[in-house]
């Protein structure tokens, strides 16, 4: 059976890794290619690189960044941030990404998902959903780095996205991102009930225990940034702890 994938995520702005809480107060956290290589050395199963550049000039570093990371690692790379059309995705794939993640552009134009799937296959298409919980208990989709809310129910959007051609859902809890309080397990369970494609849990990880909980709630992969970037722990030691908790990981 498949092992749980541990995916360090590099948020990249102007070609440099950055980290903040809820996409705010970004601080420099290093060179993407160096960091990706270090993570592969720790047995990371995949690398996720999201471009969060605020300007067009900053985003011009995106493809060179992917090329530099590709030269350094022999594990899958998922690239995203600012993918608006098939041509953007094609460029990222040609630069060395294996999967492309789309977020706001798919909300604006859901056919983008089917266009990408038709061109590259569903296994290349990752639908990234930033979800935050409303007072009524439902989750709403946030777009544009979380700054706006779309009139979309996150669980319904996940189901629609998978139907249109997303081969994977990258599910980020906006409420938990950067907080280290653990993944939003209710959100994971709700989306798990709605789709049969793999789900990557994201937002809030602080420990192997949180990751094991996410698996229990239906996640196939877990994404984390802060805990690895800050050097508090390594992918290898997280995997050791997960194995001790009975979760199958690649070591």
């Amino acid at each position, binding site marked *: *059976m*498949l*092992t749980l*994938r541990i995916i360090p995520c590099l948020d990249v702005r102007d070609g440099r890794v950055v980290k903040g809480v809820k996409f705010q107060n970004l601080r420099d956290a290093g060179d993407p290619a160096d960091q990706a290589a270090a993570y*592969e050395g720790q047995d990371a*199963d995949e690398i996720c690189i999201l471009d969060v550049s605020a300007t067009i000039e900053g985003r011009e570093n995106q493809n060179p960044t992917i090329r530099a990371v*590709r*030269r350094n690692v*022999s*594990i*899958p*790379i998922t690239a995203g941030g600012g993918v608006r059309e098939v041509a953007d995705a094609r460029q990222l*794939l*040609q*630069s*060395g*990404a*294996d*999967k492309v993640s789309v977020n706001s552009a798919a909300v604006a134009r859901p056919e983008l998902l089917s266009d990408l799937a038709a*061109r*590259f*296959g*569903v*296994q*290349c298409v990752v639908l990234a959903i930033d979800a935050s919980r409303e007072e009524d208990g439902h989750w709403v989709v946030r777009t544009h780095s979380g700054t706006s809310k779309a009139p979309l129910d996150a669980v319904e959007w996940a189901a629609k996205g998978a139907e249109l051609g997303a*081969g*994977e859902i990258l599910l980020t809890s906006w409420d938990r991102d950067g907080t280290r309080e653990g993944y939003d397990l209710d959100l994971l369970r709700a989306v798990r009930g709605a789709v*049969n*494609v*793999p789900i990557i849990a994201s937002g809030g990880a602080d420990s192997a225990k949180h990751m094991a909980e996410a698996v229990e709630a239906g996640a*196939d*992969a877990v994404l984390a940034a802060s805990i690895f970037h800050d050097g508090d722990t390594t992918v290898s030691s997280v995997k050791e702890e997960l194995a001790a908790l009975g979760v199958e990981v*690649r070591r």
Partner: protein
Amino acid sequence: MNIAVIDTGSANTRSVETALRRVGLEPTAVDDPGDVLAADRVLLPGVGAFGAAMDQLRRQELLEPLRERLRAGWPTLAVCIGLQLLARTSEEENGIEGVGVLDAAVGRFESSVRVPHMGWNRVHAPATAQWITTGYAYFANSYRVPGTSKDALETDGWSVATCDYAGDFVAAVSREGVMACQFHPELSGRWGLDLLSAWIERTKETV
């Protein structure tokens, strides 16, 4: 050392080309039938849909030279959909014939498991295999050659490595200089690079 990469249109070949460079091969794109036949090594890559890829091979008249290479056992590497293209048929595109050197029909994974089959799964090498070792490989596939084809393939002289996902399926096959992998060796870390190096090493004498 060169390896000719067949362009199947939608394939993302960058990752596999980077990995091939890392193990000492220089990839060059090829679209001429004579070149496919004459090349020391050929790669049939990675990503795309069964029907579109077969169409492309036929249109470029690469089907016959490819078939000839595979039958002769000349150094040829097929990855992911590349392995599926070698089968007779695929449920992904009913009515379209594959290359047909693998006596097998490609089918979709059952919906009792998550599809696509995405991530790292254990590949089991056959007991006496020299060409592959048991280890974790990275997969990203919705279709596969079912394990029930194993006997027929072995009868035809293929060595078959398997993997379990809602039952056994064919993870990789090898015969003479030909190796076809359902997983992505180029994305399977050190284990994948070692597999590619071993293939290069044992096909050195035939090129």
